[in-house]
């Protein structure tokens, strides 16, 4: 068994509550287009434990959003999940704190099936990347939220409205009774972001996926939103997958960190390990590119020498090798390093630490040119 699909931590007890809330194993999702195949997600594994925040970092285009869409099975029609398994501990009744649970394999469900639709929004909620577009411009924000509540809870329209107003208040929106009837384009950036968070929380999900929730807003508001998320997370013990370019935000928010590059996990581990003792050359480069804490304006995009490979033309071997300072000819470009444990809960995919490469089957698949569909 390739080590990349081992869980981060072995559950110490056999009881379900010690199991990860969400387990992603060797997930692969490709886009099949006329120009060729884009391997947007190419073998991603990580676990999310109850009440924990997993930060996912990586440069633009490394497949963070596609991974999330694949988990929720809301990929575009041109994309397919090639392999992998996503398992969720799902409550039978999301409103009951002692609700019995079952393990649901999300990858085994049809994308438009009733079962996965019930999970979306009520068990796993998404804070999408483009805050402007989360709401349709022709319906009020309240309309969207009430719609979601009615979909997942057995309440009347009046009650749903009251729930929406309450959740608006809990995310710090003043005058929630009025604001609920505004259109998204009437709200300021900060308020809109709060409304989106309110919508995501309206059905009491146990897992929140926040896809760069603060990129579109100014620094002050950004800090407020992060504080709010942290507060809500602590109050409700919600697990969060927090996606960002910004390692500074990761340091504030996350318990665990997953570093992605070209659709693959380069390194993952507890947040203090990653910041104190990063092993992978890519992670180290990312950390070096963060300006010191004193200099206020933080660069969103870390600058690392070289550019990201074209999605159709992925380097063979270690995906990072064209940019790596420690590149070893004949090793790093020959095969792909496996994600191997080097300490308790700390995994690295680099030949500097382990000679283990991907299993032959997987390597064989890697060798297929990315442009196989292109005549």
């Amino acid at each position, binding site marked *: 068994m390739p080590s990349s699909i081992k869980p981060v931590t072995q559950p110490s007890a056999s009881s379900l509550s010690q199991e990860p809330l969400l387990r992603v194993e060797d997930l692969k999702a490709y886009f099949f287009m006329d120009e060729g195949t884009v391997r947007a997600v190419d073998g991603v594994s990580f676990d999310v434990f109850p009440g924990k925040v997993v930060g996912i970092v990586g440069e633009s285009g490394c497949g963070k959003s596609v991974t999330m869409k694949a988990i929720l099975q809301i990929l575009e029609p041109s994309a397919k999940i090639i392999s992998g398994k996503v398992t969720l501990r799902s409550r039978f009744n999301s409103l009951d704190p002692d609700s019995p649970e079952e393990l649901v394999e999300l990858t085994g469900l049809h994308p438009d099936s009733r079962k996965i639709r019930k*999970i979306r*929004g009520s068990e796993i909620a998404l804070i999408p990347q483009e805050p402007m*577009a989360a709401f349709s*411009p*022709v319906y009020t924000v309240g309309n*969207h939220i009430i719609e979601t509540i009615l979909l997942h809870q057995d309440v009347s329209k009046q009650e749903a409205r009251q729930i929406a107003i309450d959740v608006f208040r809990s995310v710090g929106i003043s005058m929630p009774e009025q604001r609920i009837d505004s259109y998204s384009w009437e709200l300021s950036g900060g308020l809109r972001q709060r409304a989106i968070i309110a919508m995501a929380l309206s059905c009491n999900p146990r897992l929140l996926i926040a896809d760069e929730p603060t990129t579109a807003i100014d620094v002050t508001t950004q800090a407020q939103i992060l504080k709010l998320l942290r507060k809500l997370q602590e109050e409700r013990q919600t697990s969060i997958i927090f996606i960002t370019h910004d390692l500074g935000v990761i340091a504030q928010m996350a318990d665990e960190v997953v570093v992605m590059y070209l659709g693959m996990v380069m390194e993952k581990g507890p947040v203090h390990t990653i910041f104190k003792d990063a092993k992978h050359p890519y992670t180290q480069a990312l950390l070096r590119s963060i300006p010191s804490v004193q200099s206020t304006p933080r660069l969103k995009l870390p600058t690392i020498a070289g550019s990201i490979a074209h999605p159709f033309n992925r380097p063979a071997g270690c995906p990072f090798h064209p940019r790596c300072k420690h590149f070893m000819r004949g090793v790093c470009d020959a095969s792909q390093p496996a994600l191997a444990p080097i300490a308790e809960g700390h995994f690295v995919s680099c030949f500097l630490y382990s000679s283990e490469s991907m299993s032959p089957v997987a390597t064989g698949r890697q060798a297929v040119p990315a442009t196989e569909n292109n005549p």
Partner: protein
Amino acid sequence: MLRYILQRLLLIPVLLFLFSVMVFALVQAPPGDYLTSYIATLSSSGSSLDQAEIEALKAQFGLDQPVYIQYVRWIQSLLRGKLGLSLEYQRPNVELIAERIGLTLVLALSAFVFTWIVAIPLGIYSATHRNTLLDYLTTVLNYIGVATPNFMLALILMWWAYSQFGLSVTGLFSREFEQAPWSFAKVIDLLKHIWVPMIVIGMAGTARLTRVMRANLLDELNKPYMTSGRARGLSEWQLVMKYPVRLAINPLASTIGWYLPEIFSGSLIVATVMNLQNIGPLLLRSLINQDMYLAGSILLIYCFLAIIGTLLSDILLAWLDPRIRMEKT
């Protein structure tokens, strides 16, 4: 919003005045007048008028007056609600138009309903099942529909119905009902006939509307709020019906603007080819005979409906789209 509508309403008389001048100028433009064409008709049938009779008729019709006087007289009668006197029929134009307006409306509205009932679902299906066999088929049919002139389709259908079933599909009534007073049987007879012109008149519009609907919807289907909706647990069907369809309908509302005058004009060529007793042939005949007050009145009503239609479209759009509504307050 109210102020905006009021402004637009105040503009209507000004526009109507401008249009009336233009329409009158256009109807006047061909050489000769009603009498010249009347005399030509008479002489082709062998009879003729002497000079005195001609002068008398000229005076009676006001054709001896300068053009601007003729215009003023027409406008006066317009304002009195009479729309002037038809030179050919020697009856008030209002009556002539009123006789045909019922059938015109029935025909046009049925074509309109046919268009929407077919085009909207077909457009939605085509967009949501993009690049499937049925989508391709729809696209091909749409091209044919847009490219075929409707009088041609009329001729083909007429020939086909006649050669296959010995049926005459022209007109809106069977011979025995043509002059009969309205009765239940006559309505049934109308329904038996109306579907052919309905399809003929509605076809091009259906094809166009399907294409517009499909394109609008394809735009909307890729919007990020769709992803957000899916992530909240809405089913594809709920999602498509609530969000993109709602937005895709907006541009369709603007087509009402030009559809309203279309309805009134009664598809001139098709109606003539298929012998439908609506406004179309009346307008054609009045133009050929230089019955200028009748032609002018019909054209002016046409302009009026175009103005009203545009206004209705705007109001409808504002009502459908809150962004426009806010802008115009």
